[in-house]
Structure formats: structure tokens, C-alpha cells
């Protein structure tokens, strides 16, 4: 346990600039975006007819049948602020998760660290705990920005606790993509390949979930998209079963990643890489 904490705190210190680099823009996004609700509320009469004339496919990209909720404070936050966050944070989770172990492994740093009296399990959990804490800080900064934005908007009154509900869902989606990417990085030959595949799932999931609101045939596929389980409108009530589904899937990916890391060789710098027959010059 002692070593897990040592690894976690050291990794957390290394993540300082990542936390600021992602947390501050997320905070600014809230501060800048949310006060625009005042303008939307003022111009509801002009905007509503425009919304009604949109074709279903186009409308699906701004919330589908729920698009009209943009005129309510909760709906505005869900559609204008949280709609894109799972993609942005999913990409962040994919990049961070793939590098959690494979990043240092490819740099050759892990080889040296693992020569010390720590087990692979301790290294794995130490890094994962550090990511959990880093993500909490980033989400915390995002939530702070959202709250400051709400304070700035004249026609919005929300308690800070209510604002945290959709962020719990953002956390769960980001966590899931990080765990997925971590699991990929344990079986794929390089960190970038793991991040790329996880990133493809983020984007494909977003497109499928969004289009499924207009195209009925995609509804079944949308069940496999993690974005479907995201609750940007959680301020009106967080559905625990959707949250649990994300967390259970994340736990499964953690299980596979842990098994992968425990049983395979630790690579050194330069190991791995794609070998595509015919294209590989070697």
C-alpha cells in the first residue's frame, strides 16, 4: 500500500501541468459559455421558429427532440456546454489512459523503475490512483468554471451541488475511455495505436449516438456507444443505472489491463511498432 501511494503521489506531481492544461480551459469554457444563456432567453421568440424549421438530421446534432430545451437554463447547460464534453474528455481520457503505463514504457523509464522492489500490481494501481486524482482535479476546475459562469448569468440560479451532477457523468465517461485505452495499450504494440483506436471509438460513438436520434436503424448500435450513457442533462436528475453501466464497463477494462500488465514483458524504448506485411520494409 505504501508503494502504491508513493507511486501515486510522484505520478500526480508529474501530472501537475496536465491538470492545469486541461482544467483551466475547461474552467474558462464554463465562465465564457454559460452567460450567453441570457441572450438566448431574451431572443427565444426569434430563435424558436428557426429551430422548428430544421430538418431532423440537422436537428439531431443540436439535441434532436430535446433541442428546444435550450431555452431552459438546465437545457442550455446540457446542450451548449455538456454536449461536446464527452468527446473532448473522451479524447483526453484516451490519450492519458494509453500513456499511463505504456508512455513511460516506450520512453524506457518503466524498465528502470520496475527494477526497484515494487510489484507490477503496485505500479498499476499507483498510476491508476494518480489518474483518478488528476481527473478529479480537472473535473473540479471544470465544475468551478461552470459555477462561476452560472453566477455571472443573470437568469440562472443553481446550487453548486446541482451543477456537479452532470460532471459526475463526465467523470464516468472520461474514466471509461481512459480505462479502455489503458487496456488497449496493454495488448497493442504501441501507445499511439491504443490512443488512436480508443479515439476512434470516442468519435464513432459520438456520431452514432447523435445520429441515432434521427435514424432509427442506429438505435441498436447506439447501445454499444459509451456516449449514449452520458447524462449531460443530469441536473434534472442523475440516473444511477446509466452511471453504473459506465462504471462496470470501466471495471472490466481495468481488469483486462491489469491482467495484461501482469503477464506480459515490459518493453524498452524502441520495442513494438506496427508490422504490416508488404508495407514493412524490414
Amino acid at each position, binding site marked *: 500500500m*505504501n*508503494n502504491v501511494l*508513493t*507511486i501515486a503521489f*510522484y505520478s500526480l506531481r*508529474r501530472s501537475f501541468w496536465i491538470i492545469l492544461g486541461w482544467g483551466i480551459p475547461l474552467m474558462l469554457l464554463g465562465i465564457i459559455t454559460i452567460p450567453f444563456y441570457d441572450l438566448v432567453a431574451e431572443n427565444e421568440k426569434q430563435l424558436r421558429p428557426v429551430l422548428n424549421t430544421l430538418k431532423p438530421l440537422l436537428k439531431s446534432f443540436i439535441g434532436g427532440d430535446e433541442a428546444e430545451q435550450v431555452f431552459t437554463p438546465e437545457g442550455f447547460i446540457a446542450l451548449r456546454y455538456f454536449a461536446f464534453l464527452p468527446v473532448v474528455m473522451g479524447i483526453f481520457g484516451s490519450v492519458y489512459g494509453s500513456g499511463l503505463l505504456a508512455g513511460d514504457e516506450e*520512453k*524506457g*523509464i518503466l*524498465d*528502470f*523503475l*520496475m*527494477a*526497484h*522492489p*515494487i*510489484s*507490477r500490481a503496485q505500479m498499476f494501481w499507483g498510476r491508476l490512483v494518480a489518474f483518478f486524482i488528476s481527473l478529479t482535479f480537472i473535473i473540479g476546475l471544470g465544475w468551478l468554471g461552470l459555477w462561476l459562469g452560472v453566477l455571472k448569468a443573470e437568469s440562472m440560479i443553481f446550487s453548486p451541488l446541482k451543477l456537479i451532477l452532470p460532471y459526475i457523468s463526465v467523470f464516468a465517461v472520461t474514466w471509461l475511455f481512459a480505462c479502455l485505452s489503458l487496456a488497449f495499450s496493454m495488448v497493442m504494440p504501441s501507445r499511439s495505436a491504443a490512443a488512436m483506436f480508443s479515439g476512434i471509438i470516442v468519435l464513432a460513438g459520438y456520431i452514432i449516438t447523435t445520429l441515432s436520434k434521427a435514424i432509427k436503424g442506429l438505435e441498436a448500435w447506439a447501445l454499444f456507444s459509451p456516449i449514449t450513457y452520458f447524462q449531460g442533462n443530469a441536473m434534472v436528475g442523475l440516473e444511477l443505472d446509466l452511471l453504473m453501466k459506465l462504471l462496470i464497463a470501466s471495471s472490466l477494462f481495468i481488469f483486462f489491463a491489469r491482467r495484461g500488465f501482469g*503477464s*506480459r*514483458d*515490459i518493453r*524498452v*524504448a524502441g520495442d513494438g511498432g506496427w508490422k504490416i506485411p508488404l508495407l514493412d520494409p524490414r
Partner: protein
Amino acid sequence: MSDQNLPAIYAKDLIKSYGSFRALKGIDLQVHSGEIFGFLGPNGAGKTTAIRCMLDMIRRDSGAIEIFGKDPQIESVAVRDLCGYLPGELRLDENASVKSVLNYLRRLRQGGKDCSENILQLASRLDLSLESKIKNLSKGNKQKLGIIAAFMHNPKLLLLDEPTSGLDPLVQQTVLELVKEAKQSGATIFFSSHVLAEVQSVADRVAIIKNGEIVEVGVTSSLLSKRSWRAKIKFGSDDSGRKAMIEALKDTKVLKVSDDGRIYDIGIEGDVDSFIKCIAAFEVDYLEINKPNLEEIFLSYYGDYNS
């Protein structure tokens, strides 16, 4: 069996492959407790793979390996606790300071005050500033950090992969002194090197690895002494009967004669006395006679490699 009687490293028929490439082809190795063991071989021979198997960073395909009687695959933490390791290519977190990295490594070893004092002492001997950022360090200074990390906890077994690589000659001497001091305090040192002269100067025993197989292992001094003498002579005049006379000597072989018949390369397996007496009958312009050093023995196994 007490720890003292156990071999520091024991490997039997150790096999490790990377895909279709077999890096270790059944290595048998026994390193005694308290000795300095040199591990020689060029890049890609399998030295680093063997060391990484010892620390359970990579998993063997088959065979056995034990560090003081412990299987690294089963008791990896206990094995690593006994070892100090310096990798061949040391990579570190570039944004950290020397001090923070060493403190981190010390905490991973649950090292206390003694460990901290050792860090300060070693840094002073190696002339390394603890306040520097890793990214500002030269290759040699990074190597010094690796050496401190390997030695700081007075390990029972030191696994050093090219320990003097990138260091200036003065620091190389300090490192060899540290190796000798570690041996005096009872540690076992297993180190690989390209610098054969340094292996010859400190190693009690050496092993030569070629293409994943151990091709020679033995006490350094006897490895050198059992090798034949090599003589190079330039005679004052040509004499066709001379070659037959030399070849008639027991355990003596003419390896090469120059076109003009005056310069001879000769190999002598046993005593040189009869050879000296034999050539005394002729006019000699030049005579050079010596035993091969470790480098020549090493190169004799790597003729193909070098060509």
C-alpha cells in the same frame, strides 16, 4: 541452505524469444556469492535480455533462473529488493531534478537515513549535483545518477549493464573502485561491458555470450593462462629448413610465414623454453611474444562479427 551458500545467480537452460527471434538459446550460468562476474558480448548477443529475465521485466519461455534461490517470476519484489540495477540505456523523467528522482527511488526501496547518507556520499564521490534538472544533465551525469540508484541501498547483488558507458576516465576509475568496495563488503557484482580491459582488471570470472549462447565461462586468470602464446619473429635471413625445425617442436605451430620467408607468426601451446632455444640458433632481428588478453579471446569468438 543459507543465503551465503546459495549462488547469487543460477540459470539453467534459459530460453527467451521475441516473436520468431530467439534471444537466449538455453543459457547455463552460475554466479557465486561475493564474486565479480563479467558478462561479455556485443550488442544483440543477449546480455541485457539475460539481466532483464533476472529482474522479471521479461518472462522466460523455458528454463530456470534463481537469484539467491528465489525465482524472479514468483518472488519478483523480494528479488528486486536484493538487487541494484543499472540499465544499459538509462532513461529518466526529464523534467524532474536529480534529488527528486533519487528520493522517489529511495522511497520505493523503503530506504531510510542510511540510504539518504549513501546518496549524498556517492553524489560527492561522483561529483554529481543533486539540484540539477535531469534534462540539463549530460549522458555521463545521467549515468552517475543511475550508478547512485544502483549502489545507494548496499544491495547484495549488483546488476550493472555497461556501468562505465559515457563516463570520463577518472569517473570510470571511481566506478571500478565502487565495484571493488561493494565486493569487499560482501556484494556480488554481475556486470556486462564492452570495455574488456576493465572486465579483465576487476572480474573474478567472465562469461562470453554469442548469439544467445554462452561460449566461454571461467576464472579470468585461468582463461588467460590456458590460452597459447603467440610469437612474432623477424629472422635476419631466409632459411628454408627453419620452418621444419620449428614445427618439429612439441605443441608449436607455424601459423603464417611472410612471402620473403623471414617473418613468422607462431602459436605455442605449452612451454616456450624449447621454442626460445630452437630459434637461438638463428639470427633474429625482432621478437615479440605474448599471451592474448581478454579482448583477443573475446574477438576470437567474434571473428565473423568483426569482419
